[in-house]
């Protein structure tokens, strides 16, 4: 993986052969990101295409919510406008959370480093000869992040509704709770933290202003979102795990691997 002639081994630079002189384990973070993200992508792809075992009354997997295609009975709380859709119902809606995470400023940093090695780590030469950043198609589409954020707010609202519905028993009687309810509740809190700490959210609520002094309410909102935004990367990871965990839990319930422990 030689560095380029126009890079750190270029003719005007100090002549040093090594692509980096870093002595720490700089490769650990991108490797970890690569492994975990790849595992998630494989898992999510399998589950999204399966088209079954996504509902165990009263729990609906977040990968399939809202269930708008030919879904099993009880899973479609928003009707079935895509009835007859020939593939898994997850494929109808997953573009929104997927698009939100793919264009997220944190995930971009993570996958540009871990998957595209651009750069693999700071002051470690990248292997590519040419680089145009996000100035051309397709990466210019990263600018659509705020549109996916709008959609992500809707998705978070729907997942919150699912949590409310999870306070029922399998016969849809209210006032019950199980381990699944708790997992879904934790998941939706993490999803909201991730969604509200988004950089586009920070910009929209107040960051875009030039005069904070003329917009005291938006300034206040901006300061709150700014506090969350510091932890955006953390929420991105936590919510990635939680959404996969909830789906896995519901998958196992739906297959009858074990029964949902009920609290009341």
């Amino acid at each position, binding site marked *: 993986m030689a560095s380029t002639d*126009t890079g750190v081994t270029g003719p005007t630079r100090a002549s*040093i052969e090594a692509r980096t002189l870093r002595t720490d384990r700089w490769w650990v973070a991108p490797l970890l990101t690569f492994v975990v993200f790849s595992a998630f992508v494989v898992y999510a792809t399998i589950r999204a295409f399966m088209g079954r075992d996504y509902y165990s009354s009263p729990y609906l997997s977040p990968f399939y919510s809202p269930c708008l295609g030919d879904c099993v009975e009880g899973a479609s709380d928003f009707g079935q406008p895509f009835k007859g859709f020939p593939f898994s119902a997850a494929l109808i809606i997953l573009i929104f959370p997927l698009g939100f995470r793919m264009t997220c400023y944190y995930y971009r940093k993570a996958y540009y480093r871990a998957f595209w090695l651009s750069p693999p780590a700071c002051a470690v030469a990248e292997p590519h000869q*040419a680089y145009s950043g996000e100035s051309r198609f397709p990466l210019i589409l990263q*600018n659509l992040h705020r549109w996916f954020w709008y959609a992500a707010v809707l998705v978070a609202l729907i997942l919150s509704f699912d949590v409310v519905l999870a306070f029922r028993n399998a016969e849809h009687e209210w006032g019950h709770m199980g381990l699944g309810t708790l997992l879904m509740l934790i998941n939706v809190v993490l999803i909201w933290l991730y969604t509200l700490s988004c950089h586009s959210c920070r910009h929209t609520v107040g960051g875009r202003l030039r*005069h904070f002094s003329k917009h005291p309410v938006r300034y206040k909102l901006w300061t709150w979102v700014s506090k969350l935004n510091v932890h955006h990367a953390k929420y991105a990871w936590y919510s990635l795990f939680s959404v996969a965990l909830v789906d896995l839990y519901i998958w196992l319930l739906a297959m009858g691997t074990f029964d949902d422990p009920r609290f009341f």
Partner: protein
Amino acid sequence: MTNYLLKLRIWRGDKDGGEIKDYPVEVSEGEVVLDAIHRVQGTQAGDLAVRWNCKAGKCGSCSAEVNGKPRLMCMCRLSDFEEDEVITVTPMRSFPVIRDLVTDVSYNYEKAKELPAFAPPPRDADGKRRMAQIDVERGQEFRKCIECFLCQNTCHVVRDHEDNKPAFAGPRFFLRYAELDMHPLDTHDRRELAQGAAGLSMCNITKCCTEVCPEGIKITDNAIIPMKERVADRKYDPLVWLGNKIGLRSKDYEGRTDA
């Protein structure tokens, strides 16, 4: 205070070539890399070229790479390393080398010249200009920049691609673009220029500038990403475009002209 022999290596050379050479040197606990470099200069290599000034992390002169990491040598404590660890000091690897640890950083000054200066409106009737305190505070973080150019040095857009230098201003100047675009008194709209001539879209926000900033400025989160979002407001947001068409436009940029 204990002394020990530091296994120091320094890149020596100029634009025609060079190599990393060993300079074992006696150092004391509590010293910084720049102290060791000075001792080498004073006892072993009187012709060693090194740029430095304040020794307090405020002048931004002694930027270099210590064990491959862009650092200010005066803020790099020897106690952060094991006593038997080899420490390799090289010049910044993104800029043309002049000699030893000194590089030609004029790229940055060329980029500074391309950036239109602050353009305030006419003064109020009493001859003053006014800003509210919370509007002043937002830009304060950006003014901590000491222009050490470590962010420029570590940014892979130019570090790994010399050919991008004409089209890319770099993180230090995106900081300045953001500061001025957020400034309530500036009369320029700098979004088009930032995206076009300054090459903001070349940045893929991998955050190395933030990682190396010795002043701890959140360059990516507080300057580059907000600036990218401001550009998106203007160029990639159909709602804003529609608002402008039907007269429902944001008044925040009213009275501002393209820089």
